C-alpha cells in the first residue's frame, strides 16, 4: 500500500542555507495493509523526517512515495486516508476549547452533510473503538484528561476518516508505563481492520512488541530490515547488535558488545546498498560473513 522508493531528503543548513545536510539517504521500504512496520533509529537517524515526508509536511528531495500506486498529493483527499499522530498529545489540543472539538473540526471539513445525531453516534463508536468510555471523555477540557486518553482520542479522530495508513510518530514516549501499553494494544487491534501502521520509535522493546516487520535506520540509511523476529533474534548488522545490547532489560544485566574494530560501518557510516541475507531480511554490511 505505502511504498517509499529511494527517497532522499537534503536539508539546507547554516547561514543562508549555505551548507546541506542529508537527513534521509535513498531509503526504500513498504507497508502493507493490516501490518505494523516499526521504524527504529536513534535521534538524528531521520526516522521522523521519513514520517513527515509521508504525511506531506515536508517535500521529498528525490525519490517517490506512493500510496496504492498513486504519488502522494497532500490535500483533503490524501488526509482522508493517511493521518499522523505525534509524540506530544498535550500540544495537539487547544487548551481553551474542549478536547472533543477535534471531532467537530473533522466534521466541518470532511463531512459537513452528515446530520448531527448520526455524527454523534459515529464519534461515540470511534471512542469506544479506542477503548475509552465516551461519557468519561466527551465534554472535558484537555487538562482534565490524561496523556493516554488524549492520545487515544487523537487516534479516534483519525479513525473517523476512511483511514488506510496511520503514521504513529513516538506516540507513547510521553506516556506512563501503565497507560502506554493500552495505546500499543490499540494500534495492534487496528491491524485487524486492515489498517497499515508505520510505528516510528526509538524504543526497541516497544517496536518488538508490536510490529511484524522492523526497519533499523542509522544516519539516514537503512542498516537492517526484515521480519521483527529475524531482526531481533538474529541481528546481522553490527549496529543492530550493538543497539540491542544497549537496551536495559528487567531480568538480565547488560551484555557488553562493542562494535568490531574492523567494521566498515563504524568507519564510514552506512555502506553501499542492502544485501538480502535471508528471504525478506535485508542488511547493509559488507562483511556479513565475518561478523
Amino acid at each position: 500500500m505505502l511504498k517509499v522508493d529511494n527517497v532522499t531528503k537534503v536539508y539546507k543548513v547554516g547561514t543562508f542555507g549555505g551548507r546541506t545536510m542529508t537527513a534521509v539517504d535513498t531509503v526504500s521500504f513498504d507497508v502493507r495493509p493490516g501490518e505494523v512496520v516499526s521504524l527504529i533509529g536513534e535521534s538524528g537517524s531521520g526516522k521522523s523526517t521519513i514520517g513527515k515526508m509521508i504525511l506531506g509536511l515536508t517535500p521529498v528531495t528525490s525519490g517517490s512515495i506512493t500510496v496504492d500506486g498513486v504519488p502522494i498529493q497532500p490535500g483533503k483527499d490524501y488526509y482522508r486516508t493517511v493521518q499522523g499522530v505525534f509524540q506530544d498529545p498535550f500540544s495537539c489540543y487547544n487548551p481553551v476549547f474542549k478536547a472533543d472539538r477535534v471531532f467537530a473540526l473533522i466534521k466541518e471539513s470532511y463531512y459537513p452533510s452528515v446530520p448531527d445525531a448520526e455524527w454523534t453516534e459515529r464519534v461515540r463508536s470511534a471512542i469506544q473503538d479506542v477503548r475509552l468510555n465516551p461519557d468519561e471523555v466527551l465534554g472535558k477540557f484537555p487538562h482534565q484528561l490524561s496523556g493516554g486518553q488524549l492520545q487515544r482520542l487523537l487516534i479516534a479522530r483519525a479513525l473517523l476518516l476512511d483511514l488506510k495508513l496511520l503514521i504513529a510518530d513516538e506516540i507513547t514516549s510521553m506516556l506512563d508505563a501503565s497507560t502506554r501499553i493500552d495505546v500499543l494494544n490499540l494500534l495492534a487491534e487496528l491491524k485487524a481492520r486492515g489498517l497499515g501502521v508505520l510505528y516510528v520509535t526509538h524504543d526497541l522493546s516497544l517496536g518488538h512488541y508490536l510490529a511484524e516487520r522492523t526497519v533499523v535506520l542509522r544516519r539516514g540509511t537503512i542498516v537492517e530490515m526484515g521480519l521483527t523476529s529475524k531482526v531481533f533474534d538474529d541481528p546481522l548488522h553490527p549496529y543492530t547488535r550493538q543497539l540491542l545490547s544497549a537496551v536495559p532489560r528487567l531480568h538480565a544485566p547488560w551484555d557488553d558488545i562493542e562494535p568490531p574494530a574492523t567494521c566498515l560501518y563504524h568507519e564510514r557510516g552506512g555502506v553501499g546498498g542492502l544485501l538480502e541475507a535471508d528471504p525478506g531480511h535485508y542488511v547493509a554490511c559488507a562483511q556479513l560473513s565475518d561478523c
Partner: protein
Amino acid sequence: MSLRVNDLRVHYRTLKGEVKALDGVSFTMADGEILGLAGESGCGKTTLGKSLIRMDGRMRHAGGTVELDGRNLPVGDDRAMNAFRFHEVSLIPQYSMSAMNPTRRIGKMIGELLRSRGVTLDTAELHHRIDLVGLPREVLSRYPIELSGGMKQRMVMVISTLLDPSLLIADEITSALDVSTQKAVVKAMLGFRDNGFVKSMIFITHDLALTSNLADTVMIMYAGKLAEKAPADKVVKAPRHPYTQLLINSLPEIGVRYDQRKLAGIPGSPPSLLNPPKGCRFRDRCPIAGGECAEEPPVAEIEPDHFVACWKA
C-alpha cells in the same frame, strides 16, 4: 546510614489549596547505595528529589526531617541549605541540555562556578574525571552548543560532582537519550560511585528496566506515598505491592510479542492530591482491594530490607 528521611511532607501552594505532593515518606539509605526512585508522573518522585536540595517558591515544607551523615538537613530553610548545596547534596537536573551557560566556554564556566563556591579549580582532577566519563579534554574549550545531548549530560555530571557531594540526585537524566548513550551515562554514574566521588545516589526515573540495571535498591512511589522499597532484584522478580506487580507486568520487554502475550495497562488514574481520599490511595485501581483498604496501610518490613505499604502483602 548516609541519608535518613523521616515522614517528609512537602505541599505545593495553589489557588485551589495545597497539593499534597509528598505526603509522609520515610526511608534510609546506606553509604554507597544507589536508590532508584520510580513511579508514574505525579507520584512525587521529582518533588522528593527537589525537596532534598532546593524547594522552589511554590513548595512548602509541611513536616518531617531529613538527616544526612548524622547532620540535620534544613530542607525547609532556603538560606540555611546553601551551606549544604553542592558540597553535601548535589543535583543533575532533568534538562541538563539547558543547564550550562551558553555564552561561556565550558572550562571558563566551570572556573566561575567553583569560584562562586570559594573553591579553586584542580585541573588535573577535572581532566581525570572528564577521561572517566569518556569525553575528550578539548570539551573544556568548547561552547555547550557544540556538544551532543549525551556529551552535555556527561559534562553536567562531572560539573555537579566536582565538590564530591555525599548525596547526588539524578532526576530523569537519561529520559531524553538514545539507548546506547543511556548505557554510557549509566556506566559513568556507576564509575562515579565506585571512585568515591559521590557517596550515595538517588536515581529518579520512570524506566524500571534501566533502574533495575543500575540501582541497588528500588523504591516505588504512588500518589505521594511510598508503595514498595526493596533490593532491585526483589522488586523485579518478587514484587509484593499490587501496584508494583501491575507496573512490572505492563512493561514490554524484548522477547514479548503482542500476538503471543498481550500485556495489560493499569486502568484508571491516580487520585487528585488536592484532597486525597482516606485509606489506601491505590484502592480504586487495585484488583485485590478489600474492606480493610479503607484504612491507610502502614509501611511494613515484611522481609529484611523489603518494605511494602499494603494490607494484602
